[in-house]
């Protein structure tokens, strides 16, 4: 916020002083903010290193194996968010449907999935379903559980997104004579999707972390590999820290993408 002086009009000194004070305040804030991170992380790191230390030889051997799990984690998350979004679109249409069957079905889905823990859903598919003769391998188990779970949360997000499209849009589309399907597909959904993109991004980031839960059924993702390497060798300290740092780095990268996407959407021509 710089002073916009009218042409030819002198800016009084106090205005410049306020600006300088503002700048100084912001700079001091940044320095202290950064310092807090460096000091706290440094203290924590030093303490742990002094107490346990980095097992260089062990990590040299196992690090590539553990880090390879990042790709599995990303793969599971990407595939699952894809199916979750598809489920959510149909779920939202169901939740808004005038048809009691579709509406009831969608509401039941949301209620059951949101009312039970993700870990229970994973174990239900992997351990309970075989009793009914349905055997699902680990990787599909993880993907199905995550898709259904996030699909339910995203159903509510999409429902809100569709409801946030102004009523005038529907009226204008109907007034043009568009068939109801086209009103939904061409007018409402494209606008609703723009509204929900930030929320879907947040859920995707959350999912990369929740995907760690599928290690219990033996999907060889990041956490499973950390456990597999650390447990038998008694080096869990090394491997869990590595996994945590990987998850943290992943979310920071994804959050940066997310922030850029949102900024672009806010500035874009297409927004109202």
């Amino acid at each position, binding site marked *: 916020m710089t002073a916009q002086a009218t042409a030819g009009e002198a800016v009084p000194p106090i205005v410049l002083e306020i600006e300088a004070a503002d700048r100084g305040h912001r700079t001091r804030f940044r320095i202290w903010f950064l310092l807090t991170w460096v000091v706290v992380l440094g203290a924590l790191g030093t303490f742990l290193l002094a107490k346990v230390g980095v097992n260089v030889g062990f990590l040299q051997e196992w690090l590539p194996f553990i880090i390879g799990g990042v790709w599995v984690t990303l793969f599971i998350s990407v595939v699952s968010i894809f199916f979750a979004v598809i489920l959510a679109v149909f779920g939202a249409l169901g939740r808004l449907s005038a048809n009691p069957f579709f509406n009831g079905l969608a509401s039941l889905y949301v209620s059951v999935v949101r009312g039970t823990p993700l870990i229970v859903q994973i174990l239900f598919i992997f351990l309970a379903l075989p009793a009914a003769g349905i055997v699902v391998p680990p990787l599909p188990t993880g993907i199905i559980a995550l898709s259904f779970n996030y699909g339910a949360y995203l159903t509510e997000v999409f429902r809100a997104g569709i409801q946030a499209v102004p009523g005038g849009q529907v009226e*204008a589309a109907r007034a043009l004579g568009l068939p109801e399907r086209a009103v939904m597909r061409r007018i409402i959904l494209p606008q609703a999707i723009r509204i929900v993109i930030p929320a879907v991004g947040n859920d995707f980031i959350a999912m990369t972390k929740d995907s760690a839960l599928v290690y219990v059924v033996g999907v060889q993702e990041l956490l499973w590999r950390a456990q597999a390497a650390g447990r038998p060798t008694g080096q869990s300290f090394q491997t869990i820290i590595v996994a945590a740092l990987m998850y943290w780095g992943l979310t920071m990268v994804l959050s940066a993408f997310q922030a850029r996407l949102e900024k672009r959407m806010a500035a874009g021509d297409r927004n109202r």
Partner: protein
Amino acid sequence: MNESTNDASIADIAPGMTVDAPAPVHDPFATPGALTPAGASTIVSATNLEKYYGHNHVLKGCTLEVYPRETICLIGRSGSGKSTLLRCINFLEEPTAGTIVVDGVEVKADPLHHRSSADRERIRKIRTSAQMVFQEFNLFPHMKVIDNLIEGPIKTKGVPREQAIATAEKFLDKVGLREKRDEYPARLSGGQKQRVAIARALTMEPKVLLFDEPTSALDPTLVGEVLKVMAELAHEGSTMIVVTHEMAFAREAADRVYFIEDGVFVEVGLPDQVIEAPRDPRTATFLSRLLNKV
């Protein structure tokens, strides 16, 4: 809103009750306009329209007939029912009773929503031939101007894309916005948006245009450009029904003016007569309030 008690007439049209062969009701004020070709029959006829919102009686048996190439202005206070009447014509509102005929396609009120698919198809036909321009423009923000214009013709009428684009460009020229062809609506001023909305309606090549307070959401400095386009359309012989508070426009462009209050047409006539020399005291009160507010 006060509950009025003198609407015995609604008993005749209450849902579930059938009325034996009602005598056809005609708009006693309908007269072909100056531009109407000789012998033409009405293009819009709304007969005995009734509308309830809950227990609130908004339209109390309005009958309106419009001939080709006429411009009709509906005036009245906010809440008098004029917008509701307009929105009943293309079934954005479901009338509680009454019949709508647009360009020979007839649909009766169906307040309980038991419509057949054939009837729903008829409503789509009515909407196609009676294009509405909204107070809030309602352009599609995710589409460029040109895509806003061709969406209807392609999806509703199955017009080939190239042809729809050619028609759209012709009407963008008409409203003076050809150069905004590839802009998104967010980049346009309110007046430009409304002119695009008018072009969008025209690209459907409708039989009648319905304007729902088209300048009420505009900055006062932008009202003129929209009214100019509308006046041009009126003088070229577009059939138009305009809900408006712009008395200067009504006087200049309308063939007939309908003054509506509490869901009833109180006074109808030539614009000069209704606006300059209202006979009904309610019209006079409304006009003096409207014109003296400046």
